[in-house]
């Protein structure tokens, strides 16, 4: 238990530190692509993704991780949930990881977003919205020896009992090649894009390549540490662990590795912000607090239905190459762009300040 708590906290602190130093908000990374046509943070994201994907799959192949947990493909839930989560992060002014590290910078609005987020998760998974949740997640598609098939949970268990090889579909099982071929092709496509153009060093904090590399290493480390001490490989994620943290605090549930990671994130960000003399308690207007609260609720719903947030799907899940995570990530980005358009780009044309 002690090793679980300490390793979770340490990885959380490291994550929070890198996010704050890199000013790495994935909401911003996606937004800037269409808002100011800037790709720096998006490049950091791709760089991180390449490192984690290679790192996690390598650890799996050498047996350091027994199995990377790949999510079952629930197409409707992954698409709808991902898209709604993407809309929510723009309203909330922060993503699944962003809201936790911003607490460490003293941003009171992040507390309010987290309150909305956790209420949204509970209402969706356990509360009044659970019928919607169960309905949307009831359509699942599995990789069988005869290709992709829509199967119910009962059918899957039945097939497993018969010894049939039924697994969550991945990019490589879908195409029918070795996973390293897919990883290689994606890397070869991404690298020229990432290293096109130069790197400007920011005044303080990390440049985007350093942020991408460090975050990639931390998330790879998280895969390994969660396997070794956390009761199973899960990597860095925020949706499930946020709920687990609140369960631990409010109902006395045993703390999970993920809950400790979530707890460590604002601590790491706070240490980093203190070091840069950027920590300051601040609160926006009541109007903005209400907006971020609603954003948090929407995020909680979307992430629960979709099966993860921008980190759980966007980085950790993507590194397993599970179709669920790849599809959810694409729709998180599309949701973000949709909301950025309607909230900022369109109104700006006739907004008067």
């Amino acid at each position, binding site marked *: 238990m002690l090793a679980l708590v300490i390793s979770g906290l340490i990885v959380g602190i490291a994550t929070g530190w890198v996010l704050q130093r890199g000013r790495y908000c994935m909401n*911003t990374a996606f937004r800037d692509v269409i*808002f100011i046509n800037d790709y720096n943070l998006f490049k950091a994201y791709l760089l991180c993704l390449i490192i984690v994907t290679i790192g996690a799959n390598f650890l799996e192949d050498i047996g350091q991780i027994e199995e990377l947990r790949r999510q079952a493909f629930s197409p409707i839930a992954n698409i709808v949930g991902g898209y709604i989560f993407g809309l929510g992060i723009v309203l909330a002014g922060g993503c699944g990881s962003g809201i936790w590290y911003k607490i460490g910078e003293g941003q009171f609005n992040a507390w309010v977003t987290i309150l909305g987020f956790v209420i949204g998760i509970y209402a969706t998974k356990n509360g009044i919205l659970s019928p919607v949740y169960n309905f949307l997640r009831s359509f699942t598609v599995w990789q069988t020896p005869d290709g992709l098939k829509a199967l119910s949970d009962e059918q899957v268990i039945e097939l497993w009992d018969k010894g049939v090889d039924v697994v969550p579909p991945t990019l490589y099982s879908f195409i029918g090649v070795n996973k390293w071929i897919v990883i290689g092709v994606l890397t070869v496509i991404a690298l020229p894009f990432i290293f096109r153009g130069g790197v400007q060093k920011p005044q303080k904090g990390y440049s985007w390549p350093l942020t991408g590399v460090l975050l990639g290493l931390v998330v790879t480390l998280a895969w390994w540490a969660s396997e070794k001490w956390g009761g199973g490989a899960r990597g860095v994620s925020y949706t499930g662990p946020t709920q687990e943290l609140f369960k631990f605090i409010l109902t006395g549930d045993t703390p999970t590795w993920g809950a400790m990671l979530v707890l460590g994130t604002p601590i790491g960000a706070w240490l980093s912000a203190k070091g840069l003399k950027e920590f300051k308690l601040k609160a926006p207007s009541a109007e903005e607090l209400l907006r971020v609260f609603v954003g948090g609720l929407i995020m909680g719903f979307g992430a629960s239905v979709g099966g993860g947030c921008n980190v759980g799907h966007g980085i950790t899940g993507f590194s397993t190459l599970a179709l669920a995570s790849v599809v959810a990530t694409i729709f998180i980005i599309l949701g973000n762009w949709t909301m950025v358009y309607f909230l900022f780009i369109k109104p700006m044309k006739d907004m008067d300040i």
Partner: protein
Amino acid sequence: MADLKSMEPTETLDVLGRVCPYPLVLTKKKLEKMNSGDLLKILCDAPASAEDSIPRYAEKQGYPIEVVKLEDKGYWEIYIQKK
């Protein structure tokens, strides 16, 4: 390059307390309405906006920018000259 912060700003934009990404959104909007050569002074206390997204936007546009951090006050003064 002229020392922007010693010049008299044409306009001042106060985005203290505004949540990301409003500092950037309001800065972008303000600059679009200003004339070439005008100097905009922005007061901002959001680290990611002041240190990252606003400077990246200004550089993208080719506008000279100076970011001054007032550590005692806990916020930044940003000077951008529209070109």
